[in-house]
């Protein structure tokens, strides 16, 4: 028992001179001293506190900038609304744009929610929202629409309208696709007009439309969980999506980009994502700064 007290005091540097003498008499004294001396060999690696703080700061600023942009938008809106009071019934239109690798969740005036994927923009009119639930979309977004009057999504390639449901609209380059997760959606494009029920989607590429079943048990598009999934999509669309989710440029001049790709990639790890999209196609990649080169294996 006395041993335990002496050891504890020694480890807290509180031994009195007499106690120190007693401690030295312990048969284990030599072992303890050796353990104590050699503990230094296991010291933690150097921690570069400044470098770590700088990367925290830059990550913080990234977040702050996007909220600042939001703030200035609110300010412009407030100005527009104020203007409307004094002059005409000028409409206040609201536009939300996302950058590379950014996703934004937007709550519309009726509490419908929209998750906007990277490099997309959504515009709607707040003033006339009660009479006309219409949004303009450029890019990709997932909608959870509150029950109510007709809700319309307009894109350059077609119009999607519903009463209250959950669906995904994607309009990118030559591609237009709609997936319905709940309810019934009406889709009108130049070469397709019809209703899409829950569990189904349409995929329009280069003027050809296919209607198909969604993967079972899916309740939301996977990109809302940081995974982009493709089902027989042209490889060029996969590359384009990759460039939207990561701040990189992909060079694939020697690769067949009209081949079809089925698979997915994560948004959280560039290296893993590159493996996800190259290995199944028998490709290899090399990264130089922000440029990624894809080549045949």
């Amino acid at each position, binding site marked *: 028992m006395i041993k335990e007290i002496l050891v504890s005091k020694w480890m807290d540097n509180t031994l009195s001179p007499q106690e120190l003498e007693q401690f030295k008499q312990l048969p284990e004294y030599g072992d303890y001293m050796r353990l104590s001396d050699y503990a230094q*060999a*296991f010291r933690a690696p150097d921690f570069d*506190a400044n470098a770590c703080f700088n990367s925290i700061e830059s990550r913080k600023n990234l977040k702050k900038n996007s909220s600042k942009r939001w703030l200035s938008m609110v300010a412009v809106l407030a100005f527009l609304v104020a203007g409307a009071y004094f002059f005409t019934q000028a409409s206040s239109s609201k536009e939300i744009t996302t950058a590379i690798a950014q996703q934004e969740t937007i709550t519309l005036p009726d509490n419908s929610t929209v998750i906007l994927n990277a490099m997309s923009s959504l515009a709607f009119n707040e003033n006339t929202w009660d009479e006309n639930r219409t949004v303009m979309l450029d890019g990709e977004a997932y909608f959870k629409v509150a029950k109510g009057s007709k809700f319309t999504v307009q894109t350059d390639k077609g119009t999607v309208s519903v009463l209250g449901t959950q669906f995904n609209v994607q309009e990118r380059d030559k591609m237009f696709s709609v997936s319905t997760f709940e309810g019934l959606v009406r889709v009108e494009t130049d070469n397709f007009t019809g209703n899409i029920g829950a569990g189904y989607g349409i995929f329009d590429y280069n003027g050809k439309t296919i209607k198909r079943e969604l993967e079972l048990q899916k309740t939301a598009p996977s990109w809302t969980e940081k995974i982009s999934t493709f089902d027989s999509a042209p490889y060029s669309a996969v590359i384009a999506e990759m460039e939207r989710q990561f701040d990189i440029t992909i060079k694939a001049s020697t690769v067949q980009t009209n081949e079809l790709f089925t698979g997915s990639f994560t948004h959280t790890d560039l290296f893993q994502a590159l493996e996800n999209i190259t290995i199944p196609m028998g490709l290899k990649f090399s990264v130089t700064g922000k440029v990624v080169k894809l080549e045949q294996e």
Partner: protein
Amino acid sequence: MPKSIADNVCEESQYKAIYNRYAQDLHNFLYYKFGSNFNPSDKVQEAFIKLWENCAKVAPPKAKSYLFTIGNNMMLNAVKHEKVKLNFQKIPTQDRDHHNPEFLLEEKEYLIKYQKALSKLTEGQREVFLMNRIEGKRHKEIAELLGISRKAVEKRLYLAIDKLRVDIKEL
């Protein structure tokens, strides 16, 4: 405890002060507890980003335990029961004979046994032991950092050093 200027850590100066005060301790704590298979510096960064994101909800006196909990949880998610291993390096020696190969060999063997014995300690024992012996932290300081009682630190330290002594003898 000095009175806090702001109620939360969203204030830049407050945030920086908390960083300066705890980042190094958090880093070393994570290293001693989980070993060198994982990068503790990344977890420090993640924990501080989390603190920033939730700065409005965390009062400054709570920041320390918030950071240690987040860091610890992030490590636990990454570790998933991997065996803990701490790297060792040569320690500067003054009074020892560098050129005696027999001594050097014996020293290396001792360190390998020491390394094994450390991995056999409980996480709780290892973290307090290394913070105490390497960092020279007093019982009270360790107790405050980990949010446990002084008595618990004392107990763990004694169990740790005695277990190391016995284990090294047996190895």
